[in-house]
């Protein structure tokens, strides 16, 4: 056996072993959504079907769902029909491996636009951090799964991405030398300066973030976490962020989808 084959076998064994021993995660009865760590007023805002500002984006997403676009001149609804039926449960299963790549929900929407509608992918305009249209559609799709448990697949084709995501979750980064786990596993419920530390779940995303006055994806929130740890944030949609989002979604599996949640 050549050295290269040996290395490959060793890596495969390690990966298989790593998968066999899932990292510690909160027991199902100890899982707490981010809503448990915000103030009661913020929680009330999220639960109010009128006042939740994230619903502005959902409303816009519903309109986009019906809007024909691209060379094919079709809308989402032309193929998928009613989102309430077609998209029920879909948002709870992302990030997901599609054609050998791990895609998050927004990337999947863009892929569908390019492949089936002949439309350009939604990209952030100059004044935007993220594409508002893409966020709107993502929120609209994900909210169809509201109340359903998060259920991402981490075996089969997704296994290597899951292992990578877990590695990132426990990797210490930045000037603060912090790993995600150090706050969100070990110190959840404690205070980080004036803020309570949540368990770091993504079931509420895209969520309305009060400090940003708008809807934001989980990966924008990852960037913010990285910045706070004085680490170099990755681009939204980066493969590593997708892997991390997969791990975090698995970690919070069985939590109900809350999008659009309201968070500090």
């Amino acid at each position, binding site marked *: 056996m050549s050295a290269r084959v040996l290395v490959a076998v060793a890596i495969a064994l390690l990966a298989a072993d790593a998968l066999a021993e899932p990292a510690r995660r909160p027991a199902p009865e100890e899982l707490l959504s981010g809503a448990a760590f915000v103030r009661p007023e913020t929680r009330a*805002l999220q639960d109010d079907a009128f*006042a939740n500002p994230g619903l*502005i984006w959902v409303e*816009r997403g519903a309109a986009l769902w019906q809007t024909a676009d691209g060379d094919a001149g079709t809308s989402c609804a032309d193929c998928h029909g009613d989102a309430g039926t077609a998209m029920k449960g879909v948002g709870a299963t992302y990030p997901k491996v599609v054609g050998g790549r791990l895609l998050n929900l927004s990337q999947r929407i863009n892929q569908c636009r390019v492949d089936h509608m002949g439309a350009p992918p939604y990209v952030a305009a100059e004044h935007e951090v993220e594409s*508002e249209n893409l966020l709107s559609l993502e929120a609209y799709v994900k909210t169809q799964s509201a109340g359903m448990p998060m259920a991402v697949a981490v075996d089969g084709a997704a296994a290597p991405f899951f292992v990578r995501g877990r590695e990132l979750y426990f990797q210490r980064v930045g000037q603060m030398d912090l790993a995600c786990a150090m706050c969100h596993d070990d110190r959840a419920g404690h205070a980080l300066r004036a803020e309570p530390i949540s368990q770091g779940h993504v079931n509420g995303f895209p969520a309305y973030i*009060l400090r940003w006055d*708008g809807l934001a994806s989980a990966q924008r929130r990852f960037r913010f976490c990285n910045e706070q740890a004085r680490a170099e944030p990755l681009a939204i949609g980066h493969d590593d962020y997708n892997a991390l989002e997969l791990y975090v979604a698995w970690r919070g599996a069985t939590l109900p989808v809350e999008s659009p949640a309201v968070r500090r």
Partner: protein
Amino acid sequence: MAARKDQKRRLKIVPATARKGDIVTIKTLAEHEMEPGVRFNPESLVVYPRFIINKLICRYNGREVFVADWFSGVSANPYLAFKLRAEESGTVEIEWVDDYNQSTFARTEITVTDDATTG
């Protein structure tokens, strides 16, 4: 934030059907950046000019029944709810006025049943 012409306005009366004299809640939500006028671009040091909704007016069948003056510091996408005594069936209209005196409107119907007929 969406282009101004696409910004959403929401209005709801809870409950939409009431008896004469009942107190109902008017809920309003406007999508707006509510730029307070004190922030600046850290690179160019140019101050973003104030741009807020500075007045909300509620009309009940054309009669002004509630006015709120807003100042900078009100959050983006402002939500406001207040109580109203149901007097007669008709239209409740909300007008939001911004710093350029541009108005946006939302209207909804309220049904008021007479106390005598409902016993």
